[in-house]
């Protein structure tokens, strides 16, 4: 029987952390999916920025994205090119939000071992009982021919305890 959707690794934070890293990702799957529930401790805002990258150093500029977002009042689209990470503006929940509310993210990374550049599909939502709630869909890109073996998800401060991250591998055969 096919084992199509397999948990590779998970991390539920028992204390705050600036970032979460999945490393030594095996190359035995077709696609990857990262599910995350997260809140951060930076500033006073209701929402803040989330970042995703596939290079440990953070010094290169091989990431880019095109973002589509709506906040209950209006829709917008934006772009960042040649960046150190894929950024999701308003993609996580900050200290200004209702207590115990978290953002939800799905990152779908198809063909992560291919020798082509790597697309990423991002689905993100925050609803915090505030006057605005964000729903975001983004196209991400990592311009690199290497297989993805590391994923780093971060923010402008620290993820709070209780934030959780699950990385799955998907097989298409």
């Amino acid at each position, binding site marked *: 029987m096919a084992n199509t959707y397999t948990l590779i690794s998970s991390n539920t934070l028992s204390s705050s952390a600036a970032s979460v890293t999945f490393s030594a990702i095996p190359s035995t799957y077709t696609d990857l999916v990262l599910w995350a529930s997260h809140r951060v401790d930076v500033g006073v805002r209701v929402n803040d920025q989330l970042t995703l990258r596939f290079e440990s150093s953070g010094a290169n500029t091989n990431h880019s994205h*095109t973002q589509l977002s709506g906040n209950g009042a209006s829709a917008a689209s934006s772009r960042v090119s040649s960046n150190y990470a894929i950024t999701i503006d308003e993609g996580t929940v900050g200290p200004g939000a209702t207590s115990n509310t978290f953002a939800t993210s799905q990152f779908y990374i198809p063909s992560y071992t291919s020798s082509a550049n790597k697309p990423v599909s991002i689905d993100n939502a925050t609803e915090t009982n505030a006057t605005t709630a964000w729903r975001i869909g983004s196209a991400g890109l990592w311009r690199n021919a290497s297989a993805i073996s590391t994923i780093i998800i971060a923010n402008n401060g620290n993820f709070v305890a209780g934030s959780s991250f699950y990385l799955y591998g998907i097989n298409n055969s």
Partner: protein
Amino acid sequence: MPSTYEPIATTSLSASTSTITFSSIPSTYTDLKFILVGKGATATNVNLRFNGDTGGNYFAAYLQGNGSAASANYQSSIDNIYLTQAINWSDTYPSFLEADIFSYAGSLQKTITASTSGDYNGSGFATKWVGRWASTSAITSLSITAPSNWAVGTTATLYGIKAA
């Protein structure tokens, strides 16, 4: 352990083609998920059809962003579901499509949600769709067409999801 998420069929193109079709879809699942990673659809609309139906039986609403502005529209009684609207898919960078097709074997009309996305480091798009196929027939085939060809290496996979 029950297997609730199974690949039904997959194809990776060894020659360019305008239409990818999955046929003889079994009715043994609850929902379908369709994944495509593709290049080379360098024209406007990428079209999704079921059971070869070319009648005006599709309805859809979409929200789309191109990096500078967002747009939305509703389309009724059209002959397919446009999974991107007036967007050029890159020949250089792969783009992505994820579609969920709910209760595809039931006798009710069929609801489809889809996301398409492609970032090309300076251009690109992200789109969210909801669609309806106004047919009570079970879905037994699915076709996705690019006005110009899908490039070699384009990969498409159809998964079945079981509720129990």
